[in-house]
């Protein structure tokens, strides 16, 4: 593909600094993955890649978005991928915000932990619409909520965010995506120092014409904890890819996800869990519900290095198809080089259980309600693993609203 015809149109872009300049060169050399790239075999980008778009350079004023905000939360708002810097004033003192674009070392660090060979790892570094570096120390008692909005179907958003928790730091963060753009391509790096804990939820509720292609890289230090959960329910095409490196013993990573698809939506949740050292736990509970012609993909690889003894790595994916035309693909993989580990994976795809539906309806419960109760049970099983009440309080109503819309559909 010629660099000049590649989308987004980056001809007006002149990135600052060696890291971003190199990213632009790499992006122009590789671009979007073609149809034969194995990691993208279930998620073809050809239709989307032809869309005309260019990275946002300015912000239009938008109505207050209809996004729930946890009590006392600090909001960091990105419009068209551009951070409203006035928001930073609300951050607690132990959260230091700075411009990632000015920090070559932090950019290099982000590049080193971002998913390898992922188009957004290069594209969004090059086309960065806003760069934010958050350095967190101590215990942050207010939730930090990043809102991503925008309303221009000719634009792409490339927010790039590096979040670093110092040793022993604790924070609760949420990402809520509700844009109407051509493409949202957030690139996020997370580094957890020894004993740090980050509870994080991502809600992908983009407009249903949006493409959302996200790359997240995480490094988890000794005895540090990431409790991460993703709810992907918006966008026409969504691929949420997270690479985690367990880099210190005693680390713990929850990386669960729910995807909800209807219409012609395509949801892809891809994870790579690298147990580079031993004595770490990772657990992924993936649940998908697909209606109409929707398609869901889960690809999860757990890699256990030769010296990573006493690793506990679990992943379980279950998809529920509500329509004959819906499709789910799952590719769980274990790649284990150590010999003293507990690892398990599994994937199921199925429909609602007729016997369960009959049992509920035989009690007088209307069919649509019975169906909704079973779908809810299927999803809450995963969502209620989110212990943090603030995040659970964001995720649960969002999923319930989706289910209510589903239940109201004519059948």
């Amino acid at each position: 593909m010629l660099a000049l015809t590649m989308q987004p149109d980056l001809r007006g872009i002149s990135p600052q600094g060696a890291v971003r300049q190199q990213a632009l060169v790499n992006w122009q050399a590789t671009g979007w993955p073609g149809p034969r790239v194995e990691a993208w075999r279930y998620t073809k980008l050809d239709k989307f890649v032809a869309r005309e778009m260019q990275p946002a350079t300015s912000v239009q004023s938008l109505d207050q978005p209809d996004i729930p905000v946890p009590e006392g939360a600090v909001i960091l708002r990105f419009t068209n991928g551009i951070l409203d810097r006035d928001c930073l004033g609300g951050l607690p003192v132990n959260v230091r915000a700075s411009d990632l674009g000015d920090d070559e070392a932090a950019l290099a660090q982000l590049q080193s932990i971002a998913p390898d060979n992922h188009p957004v790892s290069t594209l969004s570094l090059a086309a960065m619409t806003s760069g934010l570096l958050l350095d967190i120390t101590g215990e942050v008692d207010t939730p930090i909520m990043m809102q991503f909005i925008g309303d221009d179907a000719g634009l792409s958003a490339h927010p790039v965010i590096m979040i670093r928790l110092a040793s022993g730091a604790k924070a609760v963060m949420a990402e809520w995506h509700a844009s109407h753009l051509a493409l949202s391509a957030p690139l996020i790096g997370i580094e957890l120092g020894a004993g740090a804990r980050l509870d994080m939820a991502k809600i992908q509720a983009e407009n249903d014409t949006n493409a959302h292609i996200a790359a997240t890289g995480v490094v988890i230090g000794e005895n540090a904890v990431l409790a991460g959960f993703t709810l992907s329910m918006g966008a026409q095409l969504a691929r949420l890819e997270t690479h985690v490196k367990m880099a210190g013993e005693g680390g713990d990573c929850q990386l669960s996800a729910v995807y909800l698809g209807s219409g012609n939506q395509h949801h892809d949740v891809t994870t790579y869990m690298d147990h580079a050292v031993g004595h770490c736990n990772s657990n992924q509970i993936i649940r998908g519900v697909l209606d109409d012609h929707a398609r869901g993909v889960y690809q999860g690889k757990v890699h256990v290095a030769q010296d990573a003894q006493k690793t506990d790595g679990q992943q379980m994916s279950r998809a529920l198809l509500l329509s004959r035309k819906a499709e789910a693909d799952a590719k769980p993989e274990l790649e284990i080089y150590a010999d003293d580990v507990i690892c398990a994976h599994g994937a199921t795809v199925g429909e609602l259980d007729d016997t369960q539906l009959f049992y509920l309806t035989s009690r007088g419960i209307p069919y649509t309600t019975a169906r909704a109760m079973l779908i809810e049970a299927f999803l809450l099983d995963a969502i209620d693993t989110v212990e943090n009440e603030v995040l659970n309080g964001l995720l649960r109503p969002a999923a319930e609203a989706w289910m209510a819309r589903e239940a109201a559909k004519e059948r």
Partner: protein
Amino acid sequence: MTALLEIRDLHASVGDKPILQGINLTINAGEVHAIMGPNGSGKSTMSYVLAGRDGYEVTGGDVLINGQSVLEMEPDERARAGMFLAFQYPVELPGVGGMSFLRAAVNARRIEAGEEEVDQLAFVKMVRAQATKLGISDDMLKRAVNVGFSGGEKKRYEILQMALLEPTIAVLDETDSGLDVDALKIVSDGVNFLRAPERAMVVITHYQRLLDHIVPDYVHILSKGKIRKSGGKELALEVEESGYAGIDDAA
């Protein structure tokens, strides 16, 4: 007087296989009828056909509640019209909380009847009162429906649902299976407590022992998809002594 439940020459198939081959039965309010029969006689099929389960195809005849045919009604509509089936094998519903399940069922009935939905506090009281009688603990009520319940607990939970839903026609499918003597007593007491002039019960069982506890007004012997013999409660004892052999010829 119109019968509460009337089954007229009912034929039904599962897949291509005819199971019920012309059942006739008239049940009036206040009566308890026992249906006995050997394995494969069509007892469970009959209970599923009455409840309206998918895959149990009625090929002839009719089922009427208060003179109205219910064959075109969905299972939930039949239930709200007063039908209740206590399952032989109650179904586990992982993730579906017991209390919200019970409340959804009770409220569905109330909405149908044009009554107000029961509020949560009043409902908890209502459930507790019934649960205590059936020896159902608070812990069991809090769990997901039937998940982790023993066989006996599941059967008691069925009777709890029956007590809360106050059906006019209760069909109990092999409620005694899997119960020890003590559990059988608890379940039977629960059922007997619900005997009422406005309610009819159909007790389906393989063995006579349940009928020592729930004493029926009428006993029918089902075999090869047809009722072969009907009589009073003494018919059950007859079966107990001489088995089902020879019943087929009696029709």
